[in-house]
């Protein structure tokens, strides 16, 4: 009683594939399977060791519950150190970011200086904070100073890049207008550049504070201070109930930091 199905209409139809043709889809999935086989065999992944890990995972998990907060003083001092590293490095990083950002803005800085600053940003951004941290640990020894410097450098690079991009995207008109009044370079920056980029950069700064808080929990693993050092030590002593207490505290702190960062950035708008 439905469509009076005359045989003129086709009875088969295939949905169009995401890949354009079925052949290309086959090639894609064959490549994925081949890659997985190659990489798994290349890594010498031992199935037995994974199986042996499962009961151990249960054991570790059982020892993690309930988390042990009895050494809260140690936990608190580690967390405070992480927070201090995050705040101090954000401020130092912001100060360092101003010259970097000005130098890396194509519309303000002379060509050779621009290329130098951009090169520094590209190379610096590539390396993970932990790699930078290990060099500062070698230079300044174990402790929060290495952590502070690590995050200050990576913040300076990140903030400098954002500042440079913001300056490059700002409207040229006001800069020319202020220049036309006979203002000096400093006055041009103060009256035409700062008002245009200030609000957005404050937002980026708050975002970076949040990011530094996350990173400050890790760099301790190579001895650069903060809660990461405490966590790493607890793992190596199989002190898993203390580890879980630290992990929960880190998760809470990071979630809180994200919430604060979202809230503060909303207030800015």
């Amino acid at each position, binding site marked *: 009683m439905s469509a009076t199905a005359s045989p003129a209409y086709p009875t088969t139809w295939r949905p169009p594939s995401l890949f354009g043709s079925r052949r290309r889809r086959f090639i894609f999935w064959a490549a994925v399977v081949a890659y997985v086989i190659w*990489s798994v065999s290349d890594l010498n992944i*031992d199935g037995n060791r994974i199986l042996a890990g499962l009961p151990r995972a249960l054991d570790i998990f059982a020892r993690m519950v309930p988390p042990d907060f009895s050494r809260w003083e140690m936990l608190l001092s580690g967390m405070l*150190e992480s927070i201090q*590293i995050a705040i101090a490095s954000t401020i130092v990083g912001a100060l360092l970011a101003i010259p970097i950002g000005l130098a890396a803005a194509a519309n303000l800085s002379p060509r050779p200086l621009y290329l130098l600053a951009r090169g520094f940003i590209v190379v610096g951004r590539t390396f993970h904070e*932990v790699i930078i941290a290990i060099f500062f640990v070698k230079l300044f020894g174990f402790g929060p100073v290495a952590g502070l410097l690590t995050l200050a450098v990576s913040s300076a690079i990140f903030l400098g890049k954002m500042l440079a991009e913001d300056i490059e995207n700002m409207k040229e008109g006001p800069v020319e207008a202020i220049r036309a009044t006979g203002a000096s370079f400093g006055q041009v920056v103060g009256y035409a550049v700062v008002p245009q980029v200030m609000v957005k950069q404050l937002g980026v700064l708050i975002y970076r504070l949040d990011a530094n808080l996350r990173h400050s929990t890790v760099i301790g693993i190579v001895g650069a201070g903060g809660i990461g050092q405490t966590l790493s030590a607890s793992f190596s002593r199989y002190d898993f109930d203390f580890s879980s207490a630290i992990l929960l505290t880190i998760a809470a702190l990071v979630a809180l930091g994200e919430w604060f960062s979202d809230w503060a950035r909303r207030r800015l708008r």
Partner: protein
Amino acid sequence: MKANANPRRDGGAEPKRSYPDTWERHTPRERLTQWLWLIGGAFAAVWSVSALDIEWAFFADAHVQAADLIQRMWPPRWSYLPLVVRPLIETIHIATLGTMISIVLALPVAFLAARNTTLNQGTWLIGRAILVLSRSINTVIWGLLFVAIFGPGPVAGICAVAARSVGFIAKLVAEAIEEVEAGQIEAVEATGAGTFQIYGVAILPQILPVLIGTSIYRWDINVRESSVLGFVGAGGIGLLLYASINQFAWSQVLVILIAILAIIIISEALSAYVRSRIT
């Protein structure tokens, strides 16, 4: 009409107006909040820096030490390069396999954590809890945990990358699910389709671009993360870097750093290219 009405109402016919000789950009209330933020920031800065007990004496010879380090690094020991290749491939394997696993795990988590597809308040909370836990613990810390479970090696690294990426991908995908128009879901529901058919037919095609784009973006972040997983024993080039630094083999360290720089820049460019092709 209007032009005539205004001056009369303003009483602008006044012979002489006095103009203010001071001008403030912000109202007192705005100034107060600005000052409070500034004082709060300054207080936090002073507290942080003073509490860290910085030994300023260390900085005195820092530049000498840094110069010394650079001198010992140069020239890079290129003969070491062939030994770097295998750990580099291992690093990329860890990032790729970890990302693949996380995509598979992230889809169900995203459906749990999106308000319009989750089953009830309880499952929504479970979904959100997975997001928060996965995202707030750094890849390297996940690495510590998985090394304790599986022992040192790339398996721990793959698990660490997957554990951190699940939350990252699922959060963005859940946001995309919440943005799917309710009417389109309703229309498929009205045909009498089952819940999973609604997910598959009305929602999945709409979020596919976000899922693919986010996964590729996360993959290039993961290459960077994998470069340090070796520091906690979770495989990859980091192991070699850590060992070389501890042996003070600085010219070797430079070769490794250059290799890391190369793969990260290449993977970033590749990821940006593929993402620009998709959208």
